Structures are given as C-alpha cells and as structure tokens.
C-alpha cells in the first residue's frame, strides 16, 4: 500500500515500506513554468529531512528542492538529464526526481496529507 505525503514547499513523497519516491507537485510545476535543467543528488548520498537535495531550474529562476524525508538516495530519474520538461508534462508520475531509503518513518508525521496540502494551495 502506497501513502503520499506533501511538504509546504510543494514536494511530494510516495511511501512504500521503507522506500520513498520524491517529486514536485503539479502546482509547483505550474508556478515554475518551463523547466530547463535539473540537478539531481548522487546515488549513495544521504540527506536529512528539510535539507536541500536537488535544484530545478526553470527559464525564470533556480529553485531548491528540500528532501521530504531523511535517508539514502538509491536511484535518480536519469531521463530528466536530457528531458527536464518531463516534470512539466507529468510532475506526479514520470517526472519523479529520486528514490530514497527512509531512515525514520516517524518523520513523515511532519508532512501534510493530500487533503491538508490541497487546503494550503487553495483548491
């Protein structure tokens, strides 16, 4: 069973057991506009919850991505290197950024449910 959680900075994490897939929300993708570059973390590196883990550059500006959970990166979405616009096309599925082994599932309590996130962005 997969659970999805959101951050106030518009990242999502889909959690399945101890593994999480991370990306940005459709709302964030629309706000950023045309995405032209993604700097992904290195596999094997570990990040703490809330720490900057990646950078997404739109035509307008660079935006930091903050990890929704602590843990070690075990896969990144290499198709974004050549086609970063996939994030605009499908931010919640094909446009995922990285997969992480979640160190402490208690931290997920700091995140928002889908309902809470929708309230935040006003839909």
């Amino acid at each position, binding site marked *: 069973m997969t659970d999805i959680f959101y951050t106030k900075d*518009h990242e999502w994490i889909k959690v399945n057991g101890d593994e999480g897939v991370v990306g940005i929300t459709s709302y964030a993708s629309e*706000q950023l506009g*045309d995405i*032209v570059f993604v700097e992904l973390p290195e596999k094997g590196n570990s990040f703490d919850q809330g720490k900057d883990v990646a950078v997404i550059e739109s035509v307008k500006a*660079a935006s930091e991505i903050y990890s929704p959970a602590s843990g070690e990166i075990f896969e990144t979405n290499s198709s974004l290197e050549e086609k970063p616009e996939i994030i605009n096309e499908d931010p919640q599925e094909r446009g995922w950024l990285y997969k992480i082994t979640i160190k402490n599932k208690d931290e997920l309590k700091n995140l928002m449910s889908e309902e809470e996130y929708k309230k935040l962005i006003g839909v």
Partner: protein
Amino acid sequence: MSELINENISIEKTSLFDFHNKNNAKIVPFGGYYLPINYSSGIIAEHNHTRSKASIFDVSHMGQIEINGPFVMEALEKILPISFSKLAPGKIKYTQFLNHEGKIIDDLMVHKTRDENSVWLVVNAACKQKDINHLRDNLNKKFNINVRNDLSLIALQGPKSEKILVDLIPKIKGMEFMSSIWFRYKNYEILISRCGYTGEDGFEISIPNKHVVTFTEELLKNNDVKLAGLGARDSLRLEAGLCLYGHDINIEKNPIEAGLKWSICKDRVDKQDFIGGEAIANEYIEGPKKNLLGFLPKGRAPAREGTLIYDASNKLIGEVTSGGFSPSLGVPISMGYITSSFRNEKEVFLNIRGKKIPADIIKLPFVPHNYFKRKK
C-alpha cells in the same frame, strides 16, 4: 516555490491590466508596474512564437518623454553622446545618459522628430524619475519636459510584424528600421516606431490609454499574433545580446566596456563636449579594462546573474550579469564582464553552485539580429 505578489500600493497598473488578467496572464511586479511574466502557453512557447511569427508585449511601463523648446537638440547634445545633425528627421537612435564619471545613468531611445523644437525619448521604467531629475538638472528651465502618461506602449515583435500591422495601418509598409512616424488611426493619433528589444523586426506603438485595449484586440484578430510577457522579452533580448539596465549596465559601468561604443558619436568624443565625455575618451581610444561578452557553458545548467568567472588557473576574472536558457539554441547562455586581457581566451570556468563548469567565450549576439532592411 510560489512567490506572492506584494500588495504594495506604489505599484501601478497599465491600461492593459484587466486585459492581461482576462487572457490568463501570470502577473508580477516589475519596474513599479504589474505586468505579465507570461500567459498560459509559457515563456518558451511565447519566445519561439516571437522568433517565428509575431507577439505583442505590453511595455507601457517604459517612460515616454517629450521635450519641447527652441534649440532642444543642441541642448540635449550636452547630455547625450550623439549628433542630432547626422540624423535625418524621423530617425531613432539608441543612446545613454552618462554621469560625469562616464557611467551609465540609463539607456534610452531618442527620436529626432519632424518638429525641430521637439525630441521624443523612451526610457526604462525603473529609471524614469532619475532620468527626469537628470534632465531638469542639466537642461535650461525654458524646456518643457512632458512625461506622456496619457500614452500606453505596446511592442509588436517578430518577422511577421509588418504583414500584421499593414492590415491596420497600410502606410507603415517599408518604414525604415529605427524610424518613427505619427499616424492618424480612426479618430486618434499613434506614434509607430520601427524598433524593439528582441533582435527581430518589429514596431513599438505609442497609443492613447483609452484606445490601447481595442487596438491590441484588433491586432490579435490576426492568427499569427499572440501575447507574450516579460519572461520571453528577457530571453529574446538575452539571445540578441541586448543589455538590460540594472543588470548588464548600471551606474558602475561605462558604455565602452558594455560594448556600446558603436552608439557613441566619435566627433563628440573628440570634442569631449557632453557630460561624461572626458571620462570615457581614454577608454574610447585605448579600449576598456573589461569587456561584456557572451558565454556558452557546457552542459545544461544555466549560469545566472552573479555567477563568478575564473580562468584555467582558477583566477577570478569576472562575473555573469545576465544568464538563462536560450529557447532558440536549446542550451544555457550568459552575458558577463571579464578582464580585457582574457577576452581572446577560448574557455573560461563558471562557478555554478560550487562546480567549475567550462564555457566557451563568444562575441554577442547569440542569435543573429533579424532587423528589417529596406530593399534598394
């Protein structure tokens, strides 16, 4: 990731504000005005449409200033490094206001009108008040400085611009690039200037505020025209290697190092008879200490404003002043200054988030200009 619009009462709306909202614009504050950064198709689509067909930009934030009085051109020559006598009536010239140190107060377009007692200026929005103060300080009080807040300004830019505008105003056909003419349209007067800020052919149209929405709607009836915002305007001018005041040029830069020597009249530098003339004379002849150049970083990461530039031995030699992604070339591009002795190097290194990214140096522009040339 979202930025809220600061509800600051000092930010003004242009006459097209409601029109922009109706057309799903994303509005941001810029230069003291609420303006569209893009519409629903997005910056890249708007950029590409401008290069292939034509787009309308609301540039009503720009200051349109009329100065009237006998011998106004002679008086302005004390302030501007141009020679009005070398310009035909109706011609437009790109120039700069300089201070006594030869540094740039603002860059602007000057129109030599068909009335010898009148000159028309178009200045940057954020510099409007500073420019007016500079004019008041340096012009005799007998000159009337009239800021034309009654006029909006829209830019029609792209290779199809003439074809589109001709349907409304047939007489603009074949108008010379960098020239302007007043036309009567329906029951009002509009000033049409063949110039722009995209590297493409195009027109800037000064039009009474109360008519600008209907005029814009008239233009949009042509299927080749779409709306474009400030985002595309910025990526277009960057590809065209055109300086943006407050970024590539400012009160710390002189026009020689900014690659704007071509815009300065040599006779005037010889005479040193304008404000800043003495200060720039040496660099005009000997060459500048640093140069504004183009950079093509390897890979896909854009090197934005403030990115530091190093040589192969890790010596700091300059800084990026504008940078982003080029939709036309599909790669990142940057403009910036480096110490002149490095200008012929093949490669420099840009520090992007701690990584040294190699970049080729190129002479501007990145994308060749496509200005209108009259067939002889």
